[in-house]
């Protein structure tokens, strides 16, 4: 699977969270739990997005430790990113 640009990943993530691209700034430092759109439903979308782009499932025990976008990238594995 091709490596992904961080910027593209953030856009995929915003899409999964149904945040309009121009609406809100999401950076590597953004804490997902601080986002209004982050809830148990959006977690399903993030799981689907990660499976679609990386063919990978993140164990829920790892998922519950995720705080920032950057820590989500670490859970997926930095080797998947440019």
């Amino acid at each position: 699977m091709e490596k992904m640009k961080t910027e593209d990943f953030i856009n995929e993530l915003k899409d999964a969270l149904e945040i309009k691209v121009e609406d809100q700034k999401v950076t590597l430092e953004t804490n997902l739990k601080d986002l209004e759109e982050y809830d148990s439903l959006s977690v399903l979308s993030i799981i689907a997005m990660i499976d679609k782009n990386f063919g990978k499932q993140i164990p829920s025990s790892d998922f519950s430790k995720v705080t920032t976008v950057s820590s989500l990238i670490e859970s997926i594995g930095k080797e998947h990113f440019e």
Partner: protein
Amino acid sequence: MSVKIVKIEYYLPETIITNNDLEKQFIDWSSEKIEKKIGIKERHIVKEDETALDLALEAGKKILKIYDKDRIDFLLFCTQSPEYYLPSGACILQDRLGLKTNIGALDYNLGCSGFIYGLAMAKSLIISKIATNILLITSETYTKHIHSKDKSNRTIFGDAAAAVIIEKSKNEQIGEFVLGTDGSGYKNLIVPNGGLRNRYDINSKEIDDDSGSLRTDNNLYMNGPEIFNFTIDAVPKVVSETLGKNNTILENLDYVIFHQANKYMNEYLREKINIPKEKFYLNLLHTGNTVSATIPIAIKDALGNKLIKKGDKVLLVGFGVGYSWGGTIITI
């Protein structure tokens, strides 16, 4: 010897909980968002004094209006909400439905895979000449196990019972089965207390799941993300194995009915497996996820809505609690 499903009926309890009802109780829960994402608008739930056996009885009575009860010589009853530890609900049902006494009857405990397993057992009982006409009832009341403040599970699950009759037939109308089990995931969908390992505990403390839902260990617990991970992994495999075992390909099928878990998950699985939208059943709008009853309800409704017709080949796949899964292909 060959078998087929000859009748299907289902029963939904009278009480309805709508998304608006839930929205009133859970202030940050958007009715519109639920319907769009999960595909559920309302769900039927049992009353305090109504049980899975009561629903099973109603579904059973409905089917016996159109099928001679004296022809039934085996009763299979699937539920995870039993009346008692013992006796079997199936024994009580035999009497209340007025079935003959010289028949076999048993309960089995499965959830979302329960209907597929029921068909597999019914087929083998007929082929082995143990029985000829089987009444299979799947009935579930997960709402009995769900905490009143557990907004996630109260949103997803509804109660229902379905009854089907399986008979001998000239042509094979229930195909080959693929069944699977992975008990390593048992803790991800569980009612921890109330059995003999952990007794029901009136003082069990409330647990906040971090997303605004509360429960205790006496209630149903579902680790949604982990269940989704399991289905992403298991369902594409069971689809391809079921097709392989029946020597067919997706293109040769007329229709596909999965256990109706929730719209988002099923739609993601459909895309991942490349099932055309027009061949894929997706309807939880008025019932929610009714566990072992979703597949027979879907078959009945798909017939009623003329989405499927006599002669159609339909892939059925059930997956969930256990983990347990199964697939087969039926001819309508």
